[in-house]
């Protein structure tokens, strides 16, 4: 178990290092670099000045040398300054990471609370009208364009009904306003997540109820409740938990779009704005944060799998 954990952690660190180089190289290929932007903003700079500035910031060095310099600084705890926000990268990312955790956490738990019972209920009577209805809703949930869902919610609840604010984070230090601004983004996240979980839960439960031990449990006279919850659900949850953890990337993508649409200051919006705004330091560290979180979610999926299913032993 400990060896498994150590091996996976070291693998994750290697993946993270490889990704940091790939992202570093890709960001260098984006249109315009910070010096070009400086020149565009200040007409008095000559091309000789630009050359000197590039040399000063090391932008004339080959990519691997620049990367190694960056890596050395990053490992020393210096992740650099954000060009857009004029603050150290970590000072921006940490509060926004917390905002994203709130949004994704709330959306995910509401979705799970709603869809696990729905999935079970549908699985108990496959091909019945209620199964078809639940299945239809689940398919709708996975088929809706996330940005359009956000626009529709804003149109209905902010423009037509005027109940909720369309975007922003609410007044600082006012919990009621903060909560009001949280409702629509959380609703959007929930609706985006429900469909997938219902489909996994339903499929997994139907599969579990088809097993021989279910027939045995029924044969020994166990009540329907006992069969479904005692034997069926426990086994059906194993793949569901794993898939939920593995789908963290999808959750993050949904959050990026939802945050951008609602002007919610989370990680996704920060990364998106940083990429489009040529804010290399912020984009790089933000993307690495997102990669690291996804890797941790994957590791958690493996651990949960072993914990839920005693037949699996991690080596």
């Amino acid at each position, binding site marked *: 178990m400990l060896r498994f954990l150590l091996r996976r952690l070291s693998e994750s660190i290697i993946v993270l290092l490889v990704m940091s180089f790939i992202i570093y190289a890709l960001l260098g290929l984006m249109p315009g670099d910070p010096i070009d932007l400086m020149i565009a903003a200040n007409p008095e700079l000559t091309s000789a000045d630009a050359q000197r500035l590039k040399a000063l910031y090391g932008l004339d060095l080959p990519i691997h040398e620049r990367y190694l310099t960056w890596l050395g600084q990053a490992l020393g705890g210096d992740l650099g300054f954000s060009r857009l926000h004029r603050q150290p990268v970590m000072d921006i990312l940490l509060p926004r990471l917390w905002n994203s955790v709130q949004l994704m956490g709330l959306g995910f738990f509401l979705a799970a609370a709603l869809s696990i019972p729905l999935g079970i209920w549908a699985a108990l009577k496959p091909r019945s009208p209620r199964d078809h209805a639940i299945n239809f809703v689940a398919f709708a949930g996975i088929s809706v*364009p996330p940005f359009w869902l956000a626009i529709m919610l804003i149109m209905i609840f902010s423009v037509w009904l005027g109940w909720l604010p369309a975007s922003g984070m609410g007044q600082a230090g006012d919990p009621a306003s903060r909560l009001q601004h949280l409702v629509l983004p959380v609703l959007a996240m929930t609706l985006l997540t429900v469909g997938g979980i219902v489909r996994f839960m339903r499929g997994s439960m139907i599969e579990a109820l088809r097993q021989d031990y279910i027939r045995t449990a029924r044969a020994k006279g166990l009540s329907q409740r006992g069969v479904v919850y005692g034997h069926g659900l426990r086994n059906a949850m194993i793949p569901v938990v794993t898939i939920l953890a593995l789908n963290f990337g999808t959750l993050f*993508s949904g959050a990026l779009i939802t945050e951008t649409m609602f002007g919610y200051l989370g990680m996704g919006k920060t990364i998106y704005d940083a990429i489009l705004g040529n804010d290399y330091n912020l984009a790089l560290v933000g*993307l690495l944060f997102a990669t690291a979180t996804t890797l941790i979610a994957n590791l958690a999926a493996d651990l949960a799998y072993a914990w839920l299913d005693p037949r699996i032993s991690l080596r």
Partner: protein
Amino acid sequence: MTTPPPVAPEQEIRLAAEAAMALQPARSYRALLWRRFLKHRLAVLSLLVLILLILLAFSAPLAEALLGVDANSVDLFALKAPPSAAHPFGTDELGRDLLVRLLYGGQVSLLVGLAAALCAAVIGSLIGVLAGYHGGSLDALLMRLTDGVIALPLLPLLIVLAAIDLEKLGLPAALARSEDVSLYRIVILISLVGWTTVARLVRGATLALREREFVRAAVALGASSRRIMLVHVLPNVISPVIVATTLSIGNIILLESVLSFLGLGIQPPTASWGNMLTNALELIWDAPHLVVLPGLLIFVTVIAFNFLGDGLQDALDPRTLED
């Protein structure tokens, strides 16, 4: 007493076999699949909707000619015009005909969805069959790569990839700036990240097939491993690949619409359902139909592909054989 005409023994057997076959309606595997597919009513309906959408989308030039409008011509005197004879659905925020743009946008979405799904399926099948057939360190390497790609936060990475400057990659400026390049780029980007599901499926199926008699027979007959993989293994894993590919088309169309909406996919003036919504947040106040229609079309197309995939899966699943 009339004697039956003399019949040769072999012919007799053949006649008997034909009679037996006539009694039992001939039911090929394909007919059985089709019959099972027809039971999934939503999938059948989805197939019809998709055929209709494809026909409509590819009649866009015809609609353009009939209405006497041009999909990309801006008319500043008819911004957000209501429906009229010249513009049956009205015009958009730049005075362009909405109906024709919706039709052209459909072409783009469907083309990108089908092309990227096909490319991803080909890449995934090749990687899967190589990993499964050869095994060993090649398998370990390819599956690590697959796991790695699955573990990445794809949307932010796709945003970076879609934003990179092709000129800095050394492409000639004329090519990097041409109109079609955004279409090719998005197909390539999505296929580069979309192959993992098929690769895993094909690898799993190949591992099982490798031990089957007909593959061993082919090995014994001295067939090259390339021939075995292409002729003996791949045709036998085609049905799960078809299901996975159909189910992926919907996701790809969603991804394309997201990137185009963010201004990183299909570039205007070329219409796509995603980039028609780029200004949506300003339009919800006075022209909600400009916002509702493109999104609704994305939604209908994606859900139809998902139902179609679900229907195919049910039809191909051997566990539903009993009905």
